[in-house]
């Protein structure tokens, strides 16, 4: 007889504070914007294929 034990579940919560350097903050925002655009363009490309 084989028995498998159910795995535990985990909930983790955390918060991320804004970067202390305003220049870095603006670069982070730009990176995230470009990633969002990239994801949208990739999705559109997949639709065309």
């Amino acid at each position, binding site marked *: *007889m084989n*028995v498998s034990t159910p795995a535990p*579940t*985990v909930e983790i919560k*955390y918060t*991320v504070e804004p*970067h202390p350097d305003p220049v870095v903050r603006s*670069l982070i925002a730009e990176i995230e914007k470009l990633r969002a655009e990239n994801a949208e363009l990739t999705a559109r490309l997949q639709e065309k294929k």
Partner: protein
Amino acid sequence: MALTLTTITVIDTATRDAQANAFAALIDSGTTQNIRLLNRTSPGGTTGGTGVLVTFTLDGTAAFGGGSSSGVLTLDVSPAISATASAGSATAVNTWEILDDADIRIVGTVTGSDTITSGQTVNLTSFTITWPAS
């Protein structure tokens, strides 16, 4: 007589607490105890990607305070647990792990849109592990 893979239907509370407290004791037995947020090539994996983005240091003797209640371990976050990110450039968090220095480790996935950049302060506000009743 056939060998059968069976499904567990009941794990009573005392058993769940025993499982949970055994894990808590293992974590507490190490010299150092950490929870990490990571970026891995495959979410929940143990290799590749950017790796460790931020490392939270846990209480060295009783990370889960009073131990398990109804199979639930709740991390003691008083005083608050914060850390400064050591890596990342708007890098997505897709993996967490809890571990000590004695190869005790559980790894899982993170869902969400948060990103982390080196130098940001990250606050661990809640962490619970629940051992199921069935």
